[in-house]
């Protein structure tokens, strides 16, 4: 038989309330941060906040914090494979250099209508 032993864990509503308030606050923060010019950091900040929010939802609303190891393994597998898909594909794009020594992104400079030599 399987290796479960947990009895169902009931999360008190107070925690749910705290989580939803945090989520709302974080939403406000991410909108506010978007109006500040941080350059390349804008996307980093936005995605970090999104990841914190998603983690809170997974851990508490979805009870992952109180779930058996097996569930956690499934979640980690999902994240891991998503990372493979995104980062290994991007590894090709960011390391591409075309024959003129132009790095990715290069497509904007491409046009067949004028001769490539011009």
């Amino acid at each position: 038989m399987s290796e479960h032993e947990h009895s169902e864990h009931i999360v008190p509503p107070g925690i749910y309330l705290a989580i939803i308030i945090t989520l709302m606050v974080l939403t406000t923060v991410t909108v506010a941060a978007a109006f500040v010019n941080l350059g390349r950091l804008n996307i980093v900040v936005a995605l970090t906040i999104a990841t914190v929010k998603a983690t809170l939802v997974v851990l508490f609303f979805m009870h992952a914090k109180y779930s058996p190891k097996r569930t956690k393994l499934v979640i980690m597998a999902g994240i891991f494979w998503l990372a493979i898909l995104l980062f290994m594909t991007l590894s090709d794009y960011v390391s591409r250099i075309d024959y003129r020594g132009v790095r990715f992104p290069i497509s904007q400079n491409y046009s067949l209508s004028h001769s490539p030599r011009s």
Partner: protein
Amino acid sequence: MHRTGALYGQFNTLEQQKDTASLGMWIFLVTEVMFFGGIMLAYAINRHTYFHAFAVGSNTLSIQLGTINTGVLLASSFTMAMAVWSAQTGKQKLIPMFLTLTILLGFIFFGVKYVEYAQKFHHHLVPGRNFDITYCVNNPEKCEDIDAKDLNIERNEIEEAMQADPDLNAHAQLYYSAYFGMTGLHALHMVIGAGLLIWLLRGSLAGRFTPEWNTPVDIVGLYWHFVDIVWIYLFPLLYLIDRHK
């Protein structure tokens, strides 16, 4: 499917049955992660390649409506969690109440989304032959819902972006392909979720869910929260690319 606390033939104990259902849903959610992963990748590469066009496209979205919808969806996740809690603690009256609230919030989300989609349609921002990122800038009389000041900002932005990317219109269309692809897929999941919630509501009104047996509420809850998580990422990716202007 309509038996309370039924033990299906293939299982030996209720505990095993609940365990199985929950594991099945989690694995299904992982496939959903990969499903959205594909389109996220397409988004990431195009955003990197055509940043100017993506910024311009993003700024034509209404940040107010986007933020409201984010709040609505988060709130619906909260009510869903409460519905699960009610089922777990046997509060029979509260289950349908929280489910109804969740459904209601879901429909508010659809309403706002509808307003947004309709707007894009009027502004010629739906990918296809009529797509024209400069439509509102060139035809202010057709876009009376945008006020003149915002339109001016938009005009400057488009002109500036055109300097860097002469093919702005085509690439802004890619942004909108991503926008409609991602939000459309998300909305499709919401529709399925809403259907499941209505089915749960029927069950809860009949008093089927008890502290001993509430697996459907539990796993539909997982699904609904997942849909919420997708939106948590879509919101900054689509609405907040380059707002600081």
